[in-house]
């Protein structure tokens, strides 16, 4: 393990600092609260000559992602960062980046989708992009933001994966909150990420590495109709499966240099848990605190923090939750008109054909940055215990912390 330096960084700064150490070829970004610090810090690194990156101060997020796509197609490592409306403006290009198999890395500083306009945190932005073909990592704290912004390159660029990666961090709660962050040396980061590898493909003019090279021309992004499009989508299905294997491999390698062990899922007090909450992001820190408090009262509660939402770790979740009697899902996004939030729906889906399955209820919480203090989490656990007592969940979709 290499020597590490402790720095006081907020989540945005942690992302910017990691990206500085990665020293990507191209960064194209557009400011939006609460992501602005990332762009500002990175601009300073560029202005001070601390990176060799071409920084493109684009005129929109749509162009930010388009620039990243052009750059990554040309063989570059490309990074961007955004939030909410900015992510929505990129929406078209998200699918294109993933379908073109370009391992771009993007920090998404989670913020509520307009309207009404709101700058605070929930997950309605990145959850809206969950089907776009990006890998999604949700961070709990600044340390994790830093680490994920380094690991993401290796995950996305893995030769069996070749997909773009979103590193999601909660707006303000993480982005603007100073924490102690252990940082690797520049050298350790450089050694860990190495050079971007390229897949060899047999194009219409012969074999080439998958990038725009005048000496070995390839055509990228053709017109693809009903006779081939479906097959190409299968490539993406397969890549996500591979990503599920690649993430733990890379986590392990990263643990060797950092001492920090990340997994797809981070369970806590699950060995004998009768009821459990599952969720994503910074709230799970609060949940852990509440678990400790309730455990002191002798209540068998546990929790699972999902770090990787895409690809969805189905089997791992089934294993982890099958013996739990009641699972509460913490969804920081609503899928309007649907039975519940996105995580809830997927969790129920994976348990549909498992014999031993928990009762599952959904807690929509924290929309628009609504505070979720320990007592609300406790309320959710009490709700789960109540379901357990009754043996059934009458009300499956619940709203935590909204005034009635």
């Amino acid at each position, binding site marked *: 393990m290499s020597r590490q330096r402790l720095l006081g960084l907020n989540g945005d700064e942690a992302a910017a600092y990691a990206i500085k150490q990665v020293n990507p070829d191209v960064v194209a970004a557009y400011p939006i609260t609460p992501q602005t610090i990332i762009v500002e810090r990175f601009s300073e690194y560029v202005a001070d000559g601390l990176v060799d990156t071409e920084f493109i101060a684009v005129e929109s997020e749509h162009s930010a992602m388009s620039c990243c796509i052009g750059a990554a197609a040309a063989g570059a490592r490309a990074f961007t960062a955004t939030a909410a409306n900015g992510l929505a403006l990129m929406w078209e290009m998200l699918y294109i980046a993933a379908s073109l198999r370009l391992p771009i890395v993007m920090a998404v500083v989670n913020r509520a989708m307009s309207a009404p306009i709101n700058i605070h945190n929930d997950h309605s932005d990145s959850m809206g992009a969950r089907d776009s073909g990006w890998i999604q990592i949700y961070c709990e704290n600044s340390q994790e933001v830093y680490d994920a912004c380094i690991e993401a390159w290796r995950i996305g660029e893995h030769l069996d994966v070749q997909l773009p990666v979103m590193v999601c961090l909660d707006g303000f709660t993480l982005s603007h909150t100073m924490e102690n962050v252990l940082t690797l040396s520049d050298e350790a980061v450089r050694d860990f990420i190495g050079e971007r590898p390229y897949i060899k493909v047999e194009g219409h*003019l012969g074999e080439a590495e998958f990038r725009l090279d005048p000496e070995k021309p390839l055509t990228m992004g053709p017109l693809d109709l009903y006779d*081939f499009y479906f097959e190409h989508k299968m*490539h993406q299905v397969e890549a996500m499966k591979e990503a599920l294997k690649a993430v733990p491999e890379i986590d392990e390698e990263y643990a060797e240099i950092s001492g920090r062990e990340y997994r797809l899922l981070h369970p806590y007090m699950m060995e004998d848990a009768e009821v459990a909450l599952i969720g994503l992001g910074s709230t799970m820190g609060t949940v852990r605190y509440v678990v400790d408090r309730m455990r002191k009262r002798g209540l068998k509660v546990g929790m699972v923090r999902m770090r990787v939402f895409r690809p969805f770790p189905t089997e791992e979740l089934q294993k982890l939750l099958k013996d739990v009697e009641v699972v509460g899902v913490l969804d920081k996004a609503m899928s309007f008109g649907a039975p519940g939030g996105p995580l809830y729906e997927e969790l129920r889906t994976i348990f549909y054909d498992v014999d031993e399955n928990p009762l599952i209820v959904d807690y929509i919480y924290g929309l628009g940055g609504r505070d979720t203090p320990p007592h609300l989490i406790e309320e959710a656990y009490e709700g789960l215990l109540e379901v357990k007592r009754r043996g059934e969940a009458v009300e499956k979709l619940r709203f935590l912390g909204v005034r009635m």
Partner: protein
Amino acid sequence: MKEAKPGWRELPFGAVPYKSSLEYHTGDWGVERPEFDLEKCTRCTLCHFYCPEGAISFDAGHPEVDLRYCKGCGICANECPAGAIRMVRKG
């Protein structure tokens, strides 16, 4: 003859096309083709530049049409300053 299309595992990564358009013959699109009067032709080469298909070459020192690709649009005949091109029925 219809060839079987490859399954997804056989297709190149990244939806990269694997055939040159040269393998796709558009020569059956139109009903006419140009006929050159090499006596009249001044070798000005304009027909080469005007052909949307790049079907007229001067490799032989005079205009030659590649009927695998000529769509019979008639631009070359319309534009030849020497009146050296005439459109005739294909086949």
